[in-house]
């Protein structure tokens, strides 16, 4: 299979239809692969039924498709079993699920660690848990280049740390977290670890067993799949120990007016009609991703990222938020004093460059960097040199036009 950016780009209908578009906002939403659209359409026109175990053939087909999607997600993550895969409506829903369901097992005074670099979706739920239940919420700080600073990890954990929830990869800086160090410290303390994989999955299949945490969350729309669907992986024993979060159809063993009892995981955590066609579409995206040679793709993503960072370095007074080099994902955020990200992005848009300016749902991190907003370029498998050169040229233009 050809792995040139052009051959990959051709497989994305929106990009194929707009050859002039330099889409550099995949960290917000990746474009959707054609096989996903086909899978959703096929499901809706041949196998649409509710998956609540109807006995007619159409319902059996829907059940099968949905459970096969679960198997696919398990393979994509190298989960121990498909029963460890909970479909949610997205990463945010998955993170809230854990903050509520695991949170219900915590005592006041127990400690939860998150980091300054978290996306609001892995920040606010834990703040809400703190305010609801009286746990202690402690922040892992970041170093000047935005990496999680684990030097004082043991101190931060203290004696009552029960849970550590951190991003695997920052959506602002592209910094990868040293997951192994966190998992080791957590294991020693008997704390569980959740990884927010929202930004990781578009850069290739993951191995949750090798990563070693207890929970892993991601969204379909960030890995070339549909919106409205996400995955929570949870280690079997971790899922089994949690009470349910949402109540409704499909998650119960028995309901009586007095009390209800719960189904086993994963059903316990899938209240209501799940996003069936979206799960099927996500599975198509994941299947496709599993056919790719990620060594080739990541090498190109890295090279483009390097070229971009080099180009940015020539812009006077530009401040790169994040690692200059080394282990980083191709997500590049920067601040040019005096030029507002909104204005920059607006000028870039006129040149068909799609970038996002703002706080990227990471206000605590931006505050740590001393900025309120920044401009972000994020690179995915369909980007190429032309996108990077256009961006560098566009920034020159923005600097001229805005000053």
């Amino acid at each position, binding site marked *: 299979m050809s792995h040139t950016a052009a051959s990959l780009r051709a497989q994305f209908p929106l990009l194929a239809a707009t050859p002039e578009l330099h889409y550099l906002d995949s960290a917000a939403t990746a474009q959707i692969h054609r096989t996903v659209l086909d899978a959703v359409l096929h499901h809706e026109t041949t196998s649409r039924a509710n*998956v*609540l*175990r*109807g*006995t007619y053939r159409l*319902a*059996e087909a829907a*059940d*099968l498709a949905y459970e096969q999607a679960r198997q696919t997600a398990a393979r994509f993550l190298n989960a121990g079993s498909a*029963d460890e895969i909970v479909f949610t409506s997205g990463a945010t829903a998955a993170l809230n699920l854990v903050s509520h369901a695991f949170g219900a097992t915590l005592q006041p005074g127990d400690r939860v660690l998150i980091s300054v670099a978290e996306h609001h979706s892995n920040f606010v739920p834990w703040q809400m848990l703190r305010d609801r239940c009286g746990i202690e919420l402690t922040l892992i700080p970041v170093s000047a280049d935005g990496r999680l600073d684990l030097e004082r990890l043991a101190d931060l954990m203290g004696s009552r740390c029960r849970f550590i929830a951190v991003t695997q990869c920052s959506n602002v800086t592209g910094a990868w977290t040293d997951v192994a160090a966190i998992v080791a410290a957590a294991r020693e303390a008997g704390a569980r670890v959740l990884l927010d994989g929202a930004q990781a999955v578009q850069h290739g299949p993951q191995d949750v067993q090798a990563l070693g945490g207890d929970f892993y969350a991601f969204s379909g729309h960030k890995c070339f799949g549909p919106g409205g669907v996400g995955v929570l992986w949870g280690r*079997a024993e971790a899922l*089994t120990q949690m009470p349910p979060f949402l109540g409704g*159809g*499909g998650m*119960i*063993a*028995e309901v009586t007016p007095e009390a209800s009892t*719960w*189904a*086993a*995981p994963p*059903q316990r955590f*899938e209240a209501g009609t799940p996003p069936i066609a979206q799960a099927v579409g996500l599975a198509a995206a994941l299947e496709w991703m599993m056919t790719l040679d990620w060594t080739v793709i990541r090498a190109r993503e890295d090279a483009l990222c390097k070229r971009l960072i080099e180009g940015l370095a020539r812009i006077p007074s530009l401040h790169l938020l994040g690692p200059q080099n080394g282990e980083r994902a191709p997500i590049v955020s920067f601040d040019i004093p005096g030029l507002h990200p909104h204005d920059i992005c607006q000028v870039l848009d006129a040149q068909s460059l799609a970038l996002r300016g703002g706080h990227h749902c990471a206000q605590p991190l931006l505050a740590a960097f001393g900025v309120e907003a920044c401009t972000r370029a994020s690179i995915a498998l369909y980007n190429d040199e032309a996108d990077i050169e256009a961006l560098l040229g566009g920034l020159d233009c923005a600097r001229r036009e805005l000053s």
Partner: protein
Amino acid sequence: MNDADSLYQDAIKQCARAAHGHGRLENVKGEAKLDNPLCGDRVRMQVALDGGRIAAVAHETKGCLLCRAAASLIGARAAGLDAAAVETLTGELDAMLKGAVAIPAGWPELAMFVPARAYPSRHRCVLLPFRALQAAIGKVGARDTAIPANDHGEAKVVI
């Protein structure tokens, strides 16, 4: 339709109606209640063992024909089995439903469930009494520990 290909062949209907083993034991040694919350299939299975083997078995079964036929078959034929044999049998039946050619050794009657292969949503109807039997044997002698939800037939069911 050839009766042998039909899900509701006479063998199943007769076996269900015969309701072998229906009732309760006087001297129950192990008991398990499992259900399928989808449709209300519900099995209470009781066993008494002798030297590790089933000496007596009884069940109360509410459910569809497949479930009732399976429970009745257990009532008629399970005496003499030990825990390992029940586990093997259940595994082979599961495999048969999933498409394996072999009928579980020594249990030719299970051939009546072959047409259910085509209906995955019904497999648990057939398996529920066997899983209840496993669970009931597991309770014998065991301190009264709850079986984890995962091992319950019902717990895996999406309703």
